[in-house]
């Protein structure tokens, strides 16, 4: 199978992107919140995109870690969107962005506790039952733990196991967290249930002080994150890989170079895997 490398589609680069010359992703990723229940100009763009690229989707507002119940009205709209655009992968963040029914529109860290594991797993199961599909849950970057009773890797692994969800492994987030919380990135990844990885995110970040990186998606991917990625792809089944670039967006040809770098790394190891298994 050819490596599948996609890009998070942004309205900011829509015009150049639609010309189709400067960047050639295999698929695009959209946040359903920004594209569902809309019409007019952007709906036309969406339909055009859907005619040209497979779409995956990465949610922002489900808030799987919220204390309160799931917003079923919202989930109904998401489901409609996933069906309408034949979305193969629907992912969400292992975080909360709403509390006491107030949306914060950003990702906050869930306390790594046993009862949060149970609560979040139950909510993922509920959402999966309703959607009739597995959700890929993403390890998020976080700047401080909150009342942690267990390690992050154990928190994630338990939830994947209990909920039966897939894992979206954000390699940059692992790098960011390993730096911010001083742990070993490879050991961390090695302790996750890698057989459940269904999708990978890659991105750049911004170091704001000696001991803190902010996950801005506003820079190019740095070499140590590529290296970590290469280490990961040798340990998992081939899955789609997505480049996230949300701010400080460069020329699209530059982003296309990043897509090609990712393809090259995946290509290198997919061949090896085929030879090793004798299927050449």
């Amino acid at each position, binding site marked *: 199978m050819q490596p599948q490398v996609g890009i998070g589609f942004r309205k900011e680069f829509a015009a150049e992107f639609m010309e189709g010359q400067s960047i050639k992703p295999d698929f695009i990723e959209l946040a359903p919140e920004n594209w569902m229940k809309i019409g*007019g100009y952007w*709906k036309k763009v969406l339909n055009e995109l859907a005619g040209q690229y497979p779409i995956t989707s990465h949610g922002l507002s489900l808030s799987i870690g919220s204390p309160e119940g799931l917003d079923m009205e919202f989930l109904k709209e998401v489901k409609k969107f996933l069906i309408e655009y034949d979305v193969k992968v629907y992912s969400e963040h292992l975080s909360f962005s709403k509390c006491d029914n107030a949306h914060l529109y950003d990702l*906050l860290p869930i306390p790594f506790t046993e009862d949060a594991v149970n*609560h979040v797993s139950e909510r993922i199961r509920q959402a999966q039952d309703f959607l009739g599909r597995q959700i890929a849950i993403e390890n998020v970057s976080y700047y401080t733990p909150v009342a942690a009773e267990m390690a992050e890797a154990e928190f994630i692994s338990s939830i994947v196991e209990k909920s039966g969800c897939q894992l979206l492994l954000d390699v940059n987030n692992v790098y960011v967290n390993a730096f911010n919380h001083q742990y070993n990135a490879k050991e961390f990844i090695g302790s996750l249930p890698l057989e459940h990885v269904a999708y990978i995110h890659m991105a750049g970040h911004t170091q704001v002080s000696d001991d803190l990186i*902010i996950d801005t998606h506003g820079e190019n991917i740095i070499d140590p994150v590529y290296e970590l990625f290469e280490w990961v792809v040798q340990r998992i089944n081939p899955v789609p890989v997505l480049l996230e670039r949300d701010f400080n967006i460069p020329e699209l040809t530059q982003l296309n170079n990043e897509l090609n770098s990712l393809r090259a790394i995946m290509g290198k190891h997919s061949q090896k895997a085929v030879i090793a298994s004798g299927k050449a």
Partner: protein
Amino acid sequence: MLLKTETYQHQKTLAEYCRNGKEITLPGAITERLPHYRRLVFNIVNDSLESAFPIAFKYVERVHWNEMVVDFFSNHKCTDPQVWRMPFEFYGYVVEKEFHEKYSLPWLNDLLYFEWLEVELYMMEDIQYPLYKDSENWLGKLVAVNPEHKLIKLKYPIHKMNPKKAKENKGDHFLLLFRQKDSGKVQFVGLSTLYVFILENIFIGTKKLDEILNDVLYFFGINDMELLQKNTHSFLTDLKSKGFVLGIYK
């Protein structure tokens, strides 16, 4: 809920801190990093409001604007999962809290409403167009119009002039906003009461144009039907060229 009160409390504490910025203590947290969360969350809200309301942002004094945003985000629970719709909740909050009185900005509610409608019309789901025939022969026919529109009344003509000038021109200012089909762009047109009357009757869709104009003669005490027909024809022709009037119903 499988969540223990304790875990819930920690989440609530962090979320409230992001909303109001008031100092907290959280077990196990790296306190000096908490402000990053407040900053990131607040920037998203602030940026969304600034881009939804560029004119209001320009004309409200910065200190007052910031006070409104801080007050809103601290005290209002945003219910919409789609962040682009959040500015509508801000508008509602500003009206409810009567910030226009507090800051002596009588035009504020009108301006926020107008700017919000531009966003909403631009983004909202498509509405099915009626079955129509291209024609400018409206008399004796039901006029077909673009269904993606809003007709509103403002107290201050903030669509025509800057808010400071608009303040001196309080009155009844009618405005038609609509989304052009091909470009998706939102256009607006100022209207006199007479044309509001005509359009509202067209929207009801039961009277043919000549019947509507007969009513106009009666209600507005006009004698010259020929002139009224001529003026209405140019009004509708102009709206047709702008993509609002479509033609006649099939």
